[in-house]
């Protein structure tokens, strides 16, 4: 049997030739993403907005009475509830926000939660309560700030690491690639109005780690080729590096995707948002490592001579370690 080769040998796609249009596209997408985040807003879940989310199943019923619930809970004076199907057709998640005036009252969310649940149970005797989440305004505020810190720290920490391991230009490149990935993923979260909760932040953090894998592999190859082909001009060298690592990029992204897609299709409903976010992010991350991270090095003034000294120092050490020096 012949083994599969997803990327044929000697593939040589001129990625760098199109770097300007792709940069323009990326820039537009990034700006568009943030415009969407700020105009459409993120669909904050209870983790970040405070309030109450309850998941119920109407046992023995074909379909959950969504409209009826909307009217019933909407009429409680707690604002418009968010009611979504959750898993099976007779299961729904009902989310009620925290009115602004009680945002600072610690027990308010619990009280609202109790009222909502009591109201549902009073009108339907076949309701099974599957899950319930209540978050007070203060705790939600803390989640918001820690989430933001964690995301920024992760981006900064990883860029710093790349800077230390490679050179500052690579660190900046990584920073751009990460900012790009996070921006586009956030834009999609806003566009599709996916619930933005703690799980999504976890997904973004994991994404930051994984999307950079591709970037590192490409950078590692660029560093290697910079030493090997001292006379090659930069665009050609970058193209060569991206092409040489292309089959690996494709394979790894593919294996991540085929592992994640079943989770998306058959996995627990509570994991859908998180899995979808990671899956989207893998596409974005693969794109950015090819079209953002590598070409940016040209603009940052990396040439075949930039690293000679630094590289030899590192190289010498490595050679010594291998006993070749």
């Amino acid at each position: 049997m012949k083994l599969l080769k997803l990327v044929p040998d000697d593939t040589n796609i001129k990625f760098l030739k199109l770097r300007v249009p792709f940069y323009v596209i990326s820039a537009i997408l990034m700006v568009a993403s943030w415009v969407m985040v700020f105009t459409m807003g993120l669909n904050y879940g209870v983790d970040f907005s405070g309030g109450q989310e309850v998941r119920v199943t109407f046992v023995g019923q074909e379909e959950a009475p969504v409209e009826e619930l909307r009217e019933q809970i909407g009429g409680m004076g707690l604002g418009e509830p968010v009611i979504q199907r959750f898993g099976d057709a007779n299961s729904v998640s009902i989310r009620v926000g925290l009115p602004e005036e009680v945002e600072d009252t610690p027990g308010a969310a619990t009280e609202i939660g109790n009222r909502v649940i009591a109201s549902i149970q009073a009108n339907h005797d076949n309701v099974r309560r599957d899950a319930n989440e209540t978050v007070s305004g203060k705790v939600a505020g803390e989640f918001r700030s820690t989430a933001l810190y964690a995301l920024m720290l992760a981006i900064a920490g990883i860029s710093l690491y790349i800077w230390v391991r490679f050179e500052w230009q690579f660190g900046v490149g990584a920073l751009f690639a990460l900012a790009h990935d996070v921006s586009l993923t956030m834009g999609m979260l806003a566009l599709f109005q996916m619930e933005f909760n703690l799980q999504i932040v976890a997904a973004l953090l994991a994404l930051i780690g994984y999307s950079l894998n591709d970037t590192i592999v490409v950078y590692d190859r660029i560093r290697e080729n910079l030493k090997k082909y001292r006379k090659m001009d930069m665009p050609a060298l970058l193209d060569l590096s991206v092409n040489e690592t292309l089959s690996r990029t494709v394979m790894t992204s593919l294996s991540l995707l085929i592992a994640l897609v079943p989770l998306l299709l058959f996995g627990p409903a509570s994991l859908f948002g998180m899995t979808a976010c990671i899956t989207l992010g893998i596409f974005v991350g693969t794109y950015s490592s090819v079209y953002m991270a590598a070409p940016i090095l040209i603009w940052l003034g990396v040439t075949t001579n930039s690293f000679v000294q630094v590289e030899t120092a590192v190289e010498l050490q490595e050679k010594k370690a291998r006993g070749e020096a």
Partner: protein
Amino acid sequence: MLDFPRWKKVSLWLIAAIAMLASLPSLLSFTTVHWPDNLYKPMVNLGLDLAGGSHILLEADQTQVAAQRLENMEEGVRQAFGNAEPEIGYTEVSTASGRLSITLENPAQVDAAREAVLPLMNGAGLVSEWRLQVLDTNRLVLTPTQSGLETAIASAMDSATDVVRRRIDALGTREPTIIRQGENRIVVQVPGLQDPQALKDLLGQTAQLEFKLVDDSPDAAALVQQGIAPGGSQLVPGAVGGDYAGTVLAVRRLGGVRGDSLTSAEATRDPQTNEAAVSITFDSQGAERFARLTRENVGKQFAIILDDEVISAPVIREPILGGTSQISGGFTVQQSTQLAIALGSGALPVELTVVEERTVGPDLGAESIRTGVIAMTIGTLLVIGLMIITYGRFGVYATLALVINVLMILGIMAMIGSTLTLPGIAGFVLTIGAAVDANVLIYERIREERKRGRRVVAAVEAGYREASRAIYDANMTNFIAGVLLFMFGSGPVKGFAVVLIIGLFTSVFTGVTLTRLWVAEWLRKSRPTDLRI
């Protein structure tokens, strides 16, 4: 690079075997096979989002601790001045802006007053808990110090945690986890609880029981009518739904008895009215104080106050000397049971509010495990398929490494006693997808080296050597993200981080080290001249 001394081979296999074995008890728990209890039995705990249960975060109001402390100080000072020889007279006492300020009748008594106050200022610890100032020659001002306040809050939280634990134990729930968090919070996790309402009600009840005399001064009733508290008294509303609902009583602020010192509380019925009631028993000190209160005030009315609401206000017919009493006031049976638990486990020194609650029913949890495992299995099979059709024999090695990897993660989680959560399942899937990255990097490099014309062994060596740098760096960035995830995450997200972080280490171990061992073994045995990769 491809040489493995015997000791190295043995220890690598040993590490893998131990970690894999440790996953067995957890895996067997899904089958009917029973792991013997007398053997070492590491288990992966299931998070509440998988096992079902309630996570409740309670927050204490710190200002309440400060206020309570100030009130205690006021009572102490009044008593000390009254007991002094000669008695120290004062004209005005104020507790405004968090300080206790006392204006003396006679400035000449300042030194005596200071002497009387000093013993009250020192707590058990070494920190000075109060600061004493004399202003305008006749005014004593006591200000709580920051460290004193912190000590008080910490000790209030400690005893609140104990009270919470006793109450939950009294409910008979199994394996609750109760942990203090930060300055003023307590995390309560109770597995297998479908409806935490009873638990929340119980924890939300401070159960501060007080017996205070009703103000019987002639103009009290008129003042209460106008909503004004008579001097030295406070207004307390009747408990909603109780016998005194809708009324307001003026009660003497000081000189009452607190219910902190109960030895037991039991739900009973009033023998005369057959009404639900709670019978309480004081400890010796409390009994003495209660006896004194009732002995000195026979014929007067006193109020039984629970959490700042009047439950009942009977007239004291005779001194109650035995240290037992009965509280009734229109309770339902359920209320009296709950009150008995709350009183018996002691009053909360500070009011606790539920600021976060997450409850998952056991059905949803079980469903999540089932669908999660199905999705994970399909994903694993797809990845295995892809690896084998792409890399042939080497793909089989990667597959083997992947299976060992998953078992090792589970085993290590069991050994360190960590918790598998719902996002943790996503972590497993993500790790499965990403773990083969190391193999892909190595194999692609071997392909390249072969294409450049290197001989088999040299190509394999170069593949492992050249790829390891990128593998190392890539894992480090994941590690940075993982650690932040762990630090920032709450329970379920932490579970995700744990799987990812352990997975990073096991992926390198299985994907790089173990496959290298197998490849080396194969190269040595069959000495191939060409590679199908």
